[in-house]
């Protein structure tokens, strides 16, 4: 009985080792990350950005929808006023990326498809203040916005 157990033990360990050994001849599944960047999906939840009109003007209408659905409290802060023609003008738009949990709630409720998520995930910085992005840091240029809309199947912006 003991002999059988010893024998079967040796056979089973040998079978396990052979299975492990097969991996020597398989291609590696890992990526050399900083040199080789992973291919991310189009829906990836990365850094937030603000799309602009094709002319480069603000697309945001200051409706506060994104700020209202954010689970992190006062993460998104918007200040706006209306000019003589009752058009919205955004005075201040800041997002504290350091506290963002990348849930994507804001991108879903935006009525003008302005706030969106990029594939950018390398967000580390040396200070907390550097992670609070203002309007100029968040906004994409007109051409970049058009490119983003084309890639993600959004309708092109029309005046």
């Amino acid at each position, binding site marked *: 009985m003991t002999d059988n157990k010893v024998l079967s033990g040796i056979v089973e360990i040998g079978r396990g080792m052979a299975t492990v050994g097969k991996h020597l001849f398989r291609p590696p599944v890992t990526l050399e990350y900083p040199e080789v960047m992973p291919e991310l999906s189009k829906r990836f939840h990365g850094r937030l950005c603000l799309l602009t009109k094709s002319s480069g003007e603000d697309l945001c209408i200051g409706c506060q929808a994104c700020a209202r659905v954010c689970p992190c409290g006062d993460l998104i802060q918007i200040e706006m006023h209306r000019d003589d023609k009752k058009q919205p003008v955004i005075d201040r738009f800041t997002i504290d990326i350091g506290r963002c949990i990348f*849930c*994507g709630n804001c991108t*879903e409720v935006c009525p003008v498809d302005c706030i969106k998520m990029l594939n950018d995930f390398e967000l580390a910085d040396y200070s907390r203040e550097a992670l609070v992005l203002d309007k100029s840091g968040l906004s994409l240029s007109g051409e970049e916005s058009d490119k983003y809309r084309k890639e993600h199947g959004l309708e092109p912006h029309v005046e």
Partner: protein
Amino acid sequence: MSTTANFPTTSQGVFLEKDIDTNDMVVNIGPQHPSTHGVLRLITTLDGELVKEIEPVIGYLHRSKEKMAESRSLFQYQPTIDRVEYLSSFFDHYAFVAALEKIADLHVPKRVQYIRMITMELNRITSHLLWFGTYLLDLGATSPMFYAFREREKILSLFEDLTGARMMYNYYRFGGVVADMPEGWLDKVRAFLDEAPKRFDEYEAIVSKNPIFLDRTMGIGIIQPEVAIQYGVTGPTLRASGVNLDQRKANPYCCYDEVEFDVPLGTKGDCYDRFVVRMQEMRESLKIIRQAVDNMPGGDTADLNKRRESGDETANDVELQTYGKKINLITYKPPKGEAMVTVESPRGFLGCYMITDGTPKAYRIKWRGASFSNLSILPELMRGRLFPDLMSIFGSIDVILPEVDR
């Protein structure tokens, strides 16, 4: 303390056991310990190598998930429930969303239910794979972890294509899902389904008959069925004791009554049976996913889009949409009511009890986590057992601490 002990000389090699009184030793395991998979403190009273008493101290990871629901609107609260049980968040989301759908009587299209079923079963596999890897790591085997993570990685890439996130999905919505599947996603799932059984065979070749693994798990940590039921143990831990209780069969939710699968049962209820039940459950999950992929209403998104472009009216049927009825998520006020939804998560029954009072916020949300009840059986199992068995028993009941503390 006996002072009259007659110690033998060292050349005799052994100490006499009689006439020596020893004090019990209290050992703290944790809160920071790699094998507790989280932050858990175990106050262990040892008599030599034997465990006399063990007392889990929990609450280190308490983040007041239930109280948070009372200060946020339901949609605002939804991303945070990913963090209740982060290894299988689709189940949390399903319980939460289904509870509200019950209260507000929202219609859920069939296509959405099938997408939910596929994602939940894939998530069950990822959770079991992570358990498999870390359990063997606890027992001293290093390589299976890398193999388990390789397959888990493939499923996580599928999730990334679908939801945009790898662990914190935030994908289900009241009466629907955020977006339809990307084109060709079902083919990727099929490719995984073809490959996975071969990989599971490999795991079993490495582990399931290994004499060291058998010695450490067979006959260790036996849970009698009656004891398991008394403690409220659920999930694979209960089914390994031979009790046939699976929420997917007992009280079918989603579309589980439309697919065929078996519920694997153990016989003895020891650590080895729990291992076998989980390994078989992964294969059953593959079976469910294959049926769901084949019977997906509307088929792949590419086909559906083609039908829509060619003006086929049947492609715009309500059962093939991503939302039953689109609701305004910012101002949505659910009607007054209460509902309890229990789903079969990889660890057992996961329940969400929701009371709404007509405001955008929930009046009360209560989570019933499976890990909490499963952890409560640990002192019972460890009484009088050898200390080295602790990690093999604790690992086998698959506790995840964020779910215990919430």
